[in-house]
């Protein structure tokens, strides 16, 4: 520093402030840039609040020279004074940091200036290297022409015309997620701790991690530096019993000082199995959730000592094939609704009851309407029956289309991502699919097995509208939708393995709740034999069997 030529210029703060135009390095949405005309003796006041980074730089036209100031200054006593062509912040107290060099005091983040400062009136070449480490200034002119990424050329003749700018932007900050871990399991945590600016992660930074209670520190194993995405890879070994651990991550630049810190918790829960439901044909999301709730009421909140978490994986018929089948069903309702003086055309509640198989259920809106009418009830009832048959035909058509053009990995990508997230948390799975949901569950299950081979998962197929299965299935003899696929479409479907006594109000014999979870009817597992079970009990048996596979009894 002693040999460095310098021309100290201390003067009053330049009064006028303008907003700089043009592109500048490192800008991001929300950043603020303030400039002042640069002249001999100019100073710039940096005024901002909050935990931010100030980046002051001169836009020299041919390049730029930037200075980074980490954290908000606690005091600004001397403003910015200038050397020829560059500006050096003097007497700026940066809180806990130690002043080392006039030029490098605050270049602690990503760039350190390493170029020489030449006398005014001559050409100057500045270079700096991309590093977080302190670099001693060079006292020789680097290679010329300069590397455009790391060098700037400026000529001091234009000095008076150059703007001096400061940028206030949201600086890198640590974030720490609170996560859930399963007892007795080791969990990889690739992105639990992250150092990032709003637009990008910041790699190569040292992050110190502590865990409370300290005696359990060994359970959380983290790398020392963030990866290029700003993530700090950790893994956690959970204890045998549920508990909560608190961890603290601290960004310690050059291992010396705290720049940013964040805290999170690791909640250790008992072993949990996710019961995932893949809904059937024409289910709305509400109906799919209702089906899942019915399954929960059937199985309960836990199995042995294992907690069950119920998750709905919703798919809609026809989304993959342009929804033509869905439009067809609505069109039929509109056309037929015009009959009988058009009484149904503005009564779409019956359309939804048709789709959910509720029109013949006692107490349904449709039944209440029919029951309340005298003359004309028969005609309306016949019309509704006709619509039922059209709807069932629509079900079959929709499934046939889906089987012709089955869901692909892309169609189930979001579901697979969720399954993988849950698998990474340490969950195992029982996946239950109904009707068309079987086409979706097969793809999702295969993807899960391929990407997370150690995860335990079993599948229960209810009324499978799929040529292949991944687990046990139940298919009723009265299932008119699957029978329609088999008998009239020639599709390969699974064999019937449940024979029911009579039909319920679910005319399709296909709905999850109305048929396969019906407790009111007897059922046999072989043709021509007496009823030994009910559809509900039989379906529960399959689910329990699947749970046994992923959550076996402790020895």
């Amino acid at each position, binding site marked *: 520093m002693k040999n460095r030529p310098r021309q100290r210029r201390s003067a009053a703060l330049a009064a006028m402030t303008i907003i700089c135009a043009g592109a500048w390095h490192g800008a991001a949405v929300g950043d603020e840039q303030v400039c002042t005309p640069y002249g001999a003796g100019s100073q710039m006041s940096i005024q901002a609040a909050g935990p931010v980074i100030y980046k002051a730089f001169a836009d020299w036209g041919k390049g730029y020279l930037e200075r980074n100031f980490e954290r908000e200054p606690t005091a600004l006593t001397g403003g910015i004074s200038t050397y020829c062509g560059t500006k050096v912040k003097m007497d700026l107290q940066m809180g806990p940091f130690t002043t080392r060099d006039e030029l490098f005091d605050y270049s602690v983040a990503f760039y350190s200036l390493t170029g020489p400062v030449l006398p005014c009136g001559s050409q100057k070449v500045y270079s700096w290297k991309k590093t977080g480490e302190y670099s001693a200034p060079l006292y020789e002119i680097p290679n010329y022409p300069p590397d455009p990424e790391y060098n700037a050329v400026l000529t001091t003749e234009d000095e008076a015309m150059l703007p001096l700018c400061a940028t206030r932007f949201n600086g890198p900050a640590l974030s720490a997620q609170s996560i859930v871990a399963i007892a007795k399991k080791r969990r990889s945590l690739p992105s639990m701790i992250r150092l990032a600016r709003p637009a990008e992660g910041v790699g190569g930074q040292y992050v110190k991690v502590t865990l409370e209670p300290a005696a359990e520190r060994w359970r959380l194993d983290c790398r020392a530096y963030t990866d290029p995405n700003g993530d700090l890879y950790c893994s956690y070994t959970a204890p045998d019993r549920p508990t909560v651990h608190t961890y603290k991550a601290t960004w310690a630049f050059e291992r010396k000082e705290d720049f940013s810190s964040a805290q999170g918790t690791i909640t250790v829960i008992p072993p949990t199995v996710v019961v*995932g439901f893949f809904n059937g044909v024409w289910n709305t999301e*509400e*109906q799919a*959730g*209702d089906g*899942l*709730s*019915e399954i*929960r*009421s059937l199985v309960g909140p836990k199995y042995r000592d294992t907690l069950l978490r*119920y*998750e709905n*994986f*919703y798919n*809609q018929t026809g*989304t993959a*094939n342009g929804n*033509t089948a869905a439009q067809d*069903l*609505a069109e039929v*309702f509109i*056309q*037929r609704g015009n009959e009988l*003086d058009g*009484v149904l*055309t*503005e*009564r*779409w509640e019956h359309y*939804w009851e048709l789709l959910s198989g509720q029109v*013949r259920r006692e*107490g*349904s809106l449709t039944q*209440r*309407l029919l029951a309340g009418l005298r*003359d*004309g009830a028969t*005609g*309306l*009832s*016949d*019309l509704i*029956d*006709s619509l*039922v*048959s*059209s709807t*069932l*035909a*629509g079900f079959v*058509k929709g499934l*046939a289309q889906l089987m*012709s*053009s089955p869901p692909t990995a892309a169609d189930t990508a979001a*579901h697979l991502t*969720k399954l993988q997230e849950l698998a990474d948390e340490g969950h195992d799975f029982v996946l239950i699919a109904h009707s068309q949901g079987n086409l979706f569950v097969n793809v999702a299950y295969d993807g899960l097995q391929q990407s997370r081979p150690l995860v335990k998962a079993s599948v229960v197929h209810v009324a499978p509208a799929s040529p292949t299965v991944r687990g046990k299935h139940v298919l009723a003899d009265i299932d*008119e939708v699957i029978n*329609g696929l088999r*008998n*009239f479409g020639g599709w390969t479907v699974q064999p019937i393995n449940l024979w029911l006594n009579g039909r319920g109000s679910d005319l399709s014999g296909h709905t999850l709740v109305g048929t396969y979870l019906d407790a009111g009817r007897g059922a046999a597992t072989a043709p021509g034999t007496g009823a030994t079970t009910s559809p509900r009990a039989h379906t529960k048996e399959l689910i329990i069997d699947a749970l046994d596979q992923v959550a076996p009894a402790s020895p």
Partner: protein
Amino acid sequence: MRKETDRAASRCRNVMRSVLAATTLVILTACGGGSGGGTTSLPGSGATSTSNPGNGATGSSPGGGSAGTATSPTLREQIAALEQSGGYPKLDRSGDIAGPDANANGVRDDIESWINMQSLSDLQKRALLQKARALQNTLLVDLNDRTALQKAGEGLMASTNCGSLHFSPYREFSNLAGQIEAMTANTRQRAERYMKYNAARSGSSTRLPDGNTCES
């Protein structure tokens, strides 16, 4: 009672006959193109006009009620009278998707009236109101806002879970919730909007929560 049962059984047989016939036609239509993507014909229009023997009688017959006489009220008049008497819910059928909500509680007024008329406990009615509010939200949520969509889906699940806490067996709640769903999307405009909501939710995953998710 016996007659009613026989009539229902007969009706059921007729329906199944119609289903098989309609299914045959549909499968032929659906499979003819091979890929399944190019089918544009309406299965119901073709199938029902050729397969349902009852159609001729129900479609344009005066017995259907479309040409009522001076002495017997038309079907439309009968339904209006039924609604007036409280035998069937009198629903808002305006072109407005949201419909009236005078007290701004997120539940359409006609559906709120229907819920309040049920012989249920206060907690049960509140659970149904929560379900109605969650369903109404599906008609109003911004379909381009994925966060809002997920929140709407979670609202449905929370209300389902709330219902499971206050109804036993759960099916009692489920049946009422199903009717609220049907009443919520009870016009063509609302039905179309509800279909769009469900299409937008395809591919989503939502947890069925535990604990008390009832709104206060």
